Each structure stands twice: as C-alpha cells, then as structure tokens.
C-alpha cells in the first residue's frame, strides 16, 4: 500500500467523477421542487389564522432543525419500508434515490418555510393596502405587488438554502446512492484505499466550483431583479 501524495491523481479522477454529477443534480432538483412545495404549505400554515396549523408547522420546523441529515436519511431509509411492511406493502426494492429525495425534500421544506415567511413579512403592509385602495382584488394585490417583491427579498436566502441542500446531499452515499461522493468512495475502494486524499480533493474542487457558480448566479439574479428594491430597505 503506497501512501504518498501525487497531484496527478486529482486531475485524473475529476473526469471520472463528473458524469455522476447527473445523479447529484437530479436528486437535488427534485428535492428543491418538492421541498419548495412543502415550504409554501408550511409558510401558509405559519402565517395563517389557525392555531393548530401554526403549532404543527412550528413543531415540524423545530424537529427538522434539530435532526442531523444523516439521521433523518437513515430514519427514512429504514423507517419507510418498515411502515410499508406493517401496511402489507413491499417497499424494499424502491430506488435508493427515492429515499434521498424524500429526506432532503422534508429538510428543504423546513428551510424554505422560513425563507418564504421572512420574505413575506419583510414586505410593508402598506403595499397591500395601496393595492386594494386603487381597486385591485386581494388575489391581484398578492400576485402583482406582494409576491414579486417578496421573491426578490427571498432570493439570497433561497440561494443559501440551495447551497446547504447541495452539501447535505453529499451524505446520500451513506445509504448506497452512487452519486458523485459515492463514486469517489468506489474509486478509492478499487484503489485499495491508496490516494484517497487526492480523490477527496478532486471531489472538494468540484463542489467548490459548483457552489461558487451557484453563488454568482444568484448574485446576478438578485441584481437583475432588484429594481426598486432600495426603498424597501429604507422603509
């Protein structure tokens, strides 16, 4: 077993890892989609009048905030088939990606709820009043005045949540999903654990580049959308 550092392994392993980004992205995108839906439902519950709904949403968020991703992932991975078993369903053969998506949708939903809620609350109530006072209906006031402004406010936090999701998603390999981290571990195992450092460095470079790209994308997006935003801060 040779243990020395050889930087060429970093460059060699990057092309081997990149194709598996597809899996990483697929899982992330679906989690974002479902998580955002969950986030909207939770935010509506938190902002609504029903006390029960509000408490349920708060409880959900507290629990999710206090649960490590890896624990949630395994709870879902072992728990869902067990529940299915008790209901007489065989869920053991579902694709592992499904468990990963369920886990991170649940988690992203909790993050998004706070993002949506704080964005909504940051919009001055006067905006709604002005909209209805010029004859817009409630729905029109939300759709044309409140939502577009809240969207801009939410953008940076949405970007941060996205980065968090991408990184927590790196744990998917622990239940055997062959995404980019899973592939890295496979390569190392096939090398009899030699040059692990180089391959992990390659992995970190890929994540780093993607994160920086996402960050820049959101900065650009923010700039493009932030017309008229300055006075929001002033209010």
């Amino acid at each position, binding site marked *: 077993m040779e243990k020395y550092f050889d930087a060429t392994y970093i460059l060699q392993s990057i092309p081997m890892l990149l194709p598996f980004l597809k899996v990483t992205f697929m899982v992330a995108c679906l989690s974002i989609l479902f998580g955002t839906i969950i986030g909207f439902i939770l935010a509506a519950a938190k902002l609504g009048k029903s006390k029960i709904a509000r408490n349920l949403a708060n409880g959900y968020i507290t629990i999710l905030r206090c649960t490590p991703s890896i624990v949630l992932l395994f709870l879902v991975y072992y728990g869902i088939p067990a529940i299915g078993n008790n209901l007489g369903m065989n869920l053991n053969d579902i694709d592992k990606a499904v468990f990963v998506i369920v886990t991170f949708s649940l988690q992203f939903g909790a993050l998004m709820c706070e993002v949506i809620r704080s964005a909504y609350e940051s919009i001055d109530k006067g905006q709604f009043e*002005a909209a209805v*006072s*010029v*004859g*817009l209906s409630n729905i029109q006031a939300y759709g044309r*005045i409140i939502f*577009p402004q809240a969207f801009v406010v939410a953008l940076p936090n949405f970007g941060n949540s996205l980065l968090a999701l991408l990184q927590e998603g790196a744990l998917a390999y622990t239940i055997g999903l062959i995404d980019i981290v899973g592939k890295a571990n496979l390569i190392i195992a096939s090398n009899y654990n030699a040059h692990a450092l180089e391959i992990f460095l390659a992995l970190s470079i890929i994540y780093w580049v993607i994160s920086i790209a996402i960050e820049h994308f959101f900065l650009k997006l923010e700039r493009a959308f932030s017309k008229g935003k*300055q006075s929001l801060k002033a209010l």
Partner: protein
Amino acid sequence: MLEIKNIQKSFGESKILKGVDIKIDKGDVVVILGPSGSGKTTLLRCINFLEKADEGLAVFDGIDINLKTASKRQIHSIRQKTAFVFQNYNLFNNKTALENVTEGLIVGRKMPKEEANELGKKALNKVGLSEKYNAYPSELSGGQQQRVGIARAVVIDPDIILFDEPTSALDPELVGEVLTVMKNIAKEGTTMLVVTHEMSFAKDVANRVIFMDEGIVIEEGSPKDIFVHPKEERTRKFLKRVLPEDFTYYI
C-alpha cells in the same frame, strides 16, 4: 354623496372611534383636524375598509353599506369609487412611477394598456412629474413619491379621494410642492376628505373643517367658523396650541 353614520372602532381595550357622523357632498373639500390619537386616521381607514369598523353605516350615492358586515363585493365597489393617499406614500416598490399610476386602471378596471398609459402620463404631468415616468420609487424624493401617490389616486377618477396626513412624513421643504398639487386638484372640483396638520391648507382650500378629539366630532363648520369663532373650548385650546403666532384669518 357620502354619508358616514355612527362609526365605531376599538383596538383591544381602547376605543378609538366612539360614534362619528360625517356628511360629504360632491365637490366638498373637507379637512379633519385634531390632536394625534383623536381617531382621524382610523376614521379614514375604516371608510376604505383598511380597518374593519365595529359599527357603522356608509351611505354612498343613496346605497347603504354596513361597515361591519359589508360583503367582499361591497368592499370592492367602495374601493373602486374611492382613492386613498397614504401618509408614507406606499408606492409599489417594484413598479415605476407610471406603472404605479396605471396599475389600478389596467388591473383593477381592465382598461387597455395604451389608454391607461395615456391617462397615467396625463396624471403625472398634472402633478409635475412629466420627467419621471420611468423612475422607481427609490429614485424619487419623498415629495415626488407623494405626488405620484396623488396621481395614482386621481387617475382612477374616484368619487372621493381620502388623504391620510399626506405631508406628515415629508421634510418641511418638500411639503409645499405636495400642498400645491392638492390645491390644484381641489380647484378642479375633486371631492376630498383630508386629514392633515397643515392649517394653511385647511384655511385656504377647505370649504368645511371638522374638529375631532377622543373619537368624536367636537365641532364642524366653515374654516371661518372654526378658526375665527370656535364654539367649543377644546377647539380653542387645540388651535391656540397649533396655530402659529402670525396665523391670521382674512376673509
């Protein structure tokens, strides 16, 4: 044209409006005066359903609307006939000056865009902002923002415009431009109900002044009645406190 009867409103324990009646005829410019906390702003907000009154009746062109139990359609119809100018302008931050003015026409009244833009530009010209069609609220001074707010109210050609302390949030040197615009639209015969602390506006422009305190109307009459011959002790005390030394009333 608009009559408000026995309007009452509480926030928690404190009763802000204790049964207020006012009557406004077409073309009236009515100014409501009163110390802060007297319920002036709440009265205005209740008329436009920005607050829900606990009790009260609005008679709009002979149609009774219960302020407490009004249906969504009734609320919408009142809002279509009235316009509101806010103390802190409340311009739509995500829209340009022109878009702010046309939003109510295009979306609220389904007017074709070209027509709305034409009316919108006219309204902005009227308030002296012909150069600022495409400016966002953040690019405008407070006085300019409030003038857009007034244009936004005027453009929908409402039966009455409600002004809620339109100059209170402005720096002193910007008050004049807004008052001038208000005077001009009053001259055109627009019906206005104005809550303000600008005594000169009440004196020069109003044809009726209402003095409110602690949730009730203390006294009302022509500006002359109120400023020269106030009947009530409370009115006198208030005027003495707020009127500048050199404030004189010429007929």
